[in-house]
């Protein structure tokens, strides 16, 4: 909620500034609105009060902690693959929390960008498999948008059968290849 509020305020500041501001300006505007005017002096007879700790949110780039969370093996955000049953395109329950975590990350980092690559196993027409992979990645995107990610943060694409994770020609390999992979800006 707070992130959304700040994003809104930043957007207002952006509009006021004629949309020529840099991302750093967006962040500064957000902080300023929460702390009052900088340089405002406390009253003479008043003890100097430590300004309240401000949870600044930098909307220009993901914070260092959240970036590392994307790579932290202990974070669900480091898990990037969603696997599917044969001829299935819906996200199985076991991957729901994974999708929710990534949707939350996008919600809290409005400048973050994501590519979802849908994949299929090797059987059948390469181009039809591009279509099937697209159906998988579109499904993940739709779910994330319903969970509060913004549409323009996510590009869903398909690699069809062209980028298998496993090279075999049996169900063991195919089940690893029917998947959607999540990549963040900078990773693609």
């Amino acid at each position, binding site marked *: 909620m707070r992130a959304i509020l700040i994003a809104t305020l930043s957007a207002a500041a952006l509009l006021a500034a004629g949309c020529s501001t840099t991302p750093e300006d967006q962040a500064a505007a957000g902080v300023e609105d929460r702390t009052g005017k900088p340089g405002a002096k406390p009253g003479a007879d008043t003890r100097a009060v430590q300004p309240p700790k401000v949870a600044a949110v930098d909307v220009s780039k993901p914070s260092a902690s959240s970036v590392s969370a994307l790579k932290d093996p202990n974070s669900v955000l480091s898990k990037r693959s969603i696997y599917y049953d044969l001829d299935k395109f819906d996200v199985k329950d076991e991957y729901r929390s994974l999708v929710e975590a990534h949707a939350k990350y996008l919600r809290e980092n409005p400048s973050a960008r994501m*590519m979802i*690559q849908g994949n299929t196993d090797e*059987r*059948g*027409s*390469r*181009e*039809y498999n*591009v*279509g*099937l*992979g*697209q*159906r998988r990645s*579109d499904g993940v995107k739709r779910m994330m948008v319903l969970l509060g990610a913004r549409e323009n943060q996510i*590009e*869903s*694409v*398909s*690699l*069809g059968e*062209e*980028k298998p994770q496993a090279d075999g*020609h049996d169900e063991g390999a195919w089940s690893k290849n029917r998947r959607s992979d999540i*990549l963040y800006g900078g990773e*693609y």
Partner: protein
Amino acid sequence: MPNLVRTLIGLALLVAVAQARAQLEIIVTDPGAQRSPIAVVPFAGEAAVGSSLTQIVRADLERSGLFRGVEVPPLAPPPTENTPVNYGEWRSRLADALVLGSVVTRPDGRFEVRFRVYDIVKQAPLGAIAYVFTKENARAAAHRVADFVYEKITGEKGVFSTQIAYVVRRGAAFELQIADADGERSQYLLRSNEPIISPVWSPEGRRIAYVSFESKKPVVYVHHLEDRRRQVVASFRGSNSAPAWAPDGKTLAVVLSVDGGSQLFLLNADGSGARRRISNSNSIDTEPRFSNDGKWIYFTSDRGGSPQVYRMPSGGGEPQRVTFEGSYNVSPRPSPDGRVLAYVTRNAGKFQVALLDLSNRQVQVITDSDHDESPSFAPNGRMILLATVIGGRGVLSAVSADGRIKQRLPFAGGDVREPAWGPFIE
């Protein structure tokens, strides 16, 4: 849409025409029963060229599946196109047709091959012609000779001078290559560390459209063979794939996911103008192919629950279902004369090429392998090139349109796939 047209010089890619390392090799695995015996007598004086034209002519004719070479004993003096023909003598050698010719060196250093074709059974000359060529183009000249012989005897244009395109994968490296129809003289157009799929020749044969994954998603390019220029023609948000040329060479049908799902669009092949959406479904609509007369677009759609072939008027309109037998019919390719549709059908887990006669609805499965993909008609409609898997490796195979003659084009090292047979070259 910004940057619709971008001429790219890929830094991570070696875009060049260079001699590829390995060559295709053709083996006739099922020569068929009724092959016409033909005697191609070594052309007098061809030793000056440094390579044997007649060997290439013979190999071409045999590879068509319609001819069988007749052993010719050494003849002295070597006959030429001007030697009178003793029909009875050639009949006794069991030849139905005869080719006599010679090669002379011209004052400018180029060569000239002159030859005549005879029908031994009817005891009649069928025609004569001469071609001028340089030493480097001896192979192309031989293909021209074979095309002339083929056309004089069968009444149909030969395809020995045409080219094929295909993709070779070696480990993580992909190459888009072109070669003569016999697999010789292969050269690569594009080398990439990401997949390349769906090459298709423009109608005049000077451009190839394809899908490259070099930007981590499918993007459609048009590659100009003469100056190696690459043009991005579809790089919209989402996936861009399955290019198909309209017969006018100016329009491409493509599949885009920019509006969600996978839908058919028309684009100007030079990247100008706006995209025009021509399919409107909640299903996957893909693999468009224009009929040669430009009236229809055949495509794959799973709007009925399983992937089937449909067609619609090429400007858009109500689709009609074309395939009905089976639960998986994909990759439609209308024949050059528009009478037959080749496609891939799944039979008990096997993917095979089928032909549908569009006038009487008869279906004939013409391959007996398990993993057939990407059928592509020769421009004369007599053969279909396809990708298959043999011994765990991707190879190209060619099958005659009646299914009787099959050839394999194995490749030394790497998986070969995504074949596309080019048009007639003028």
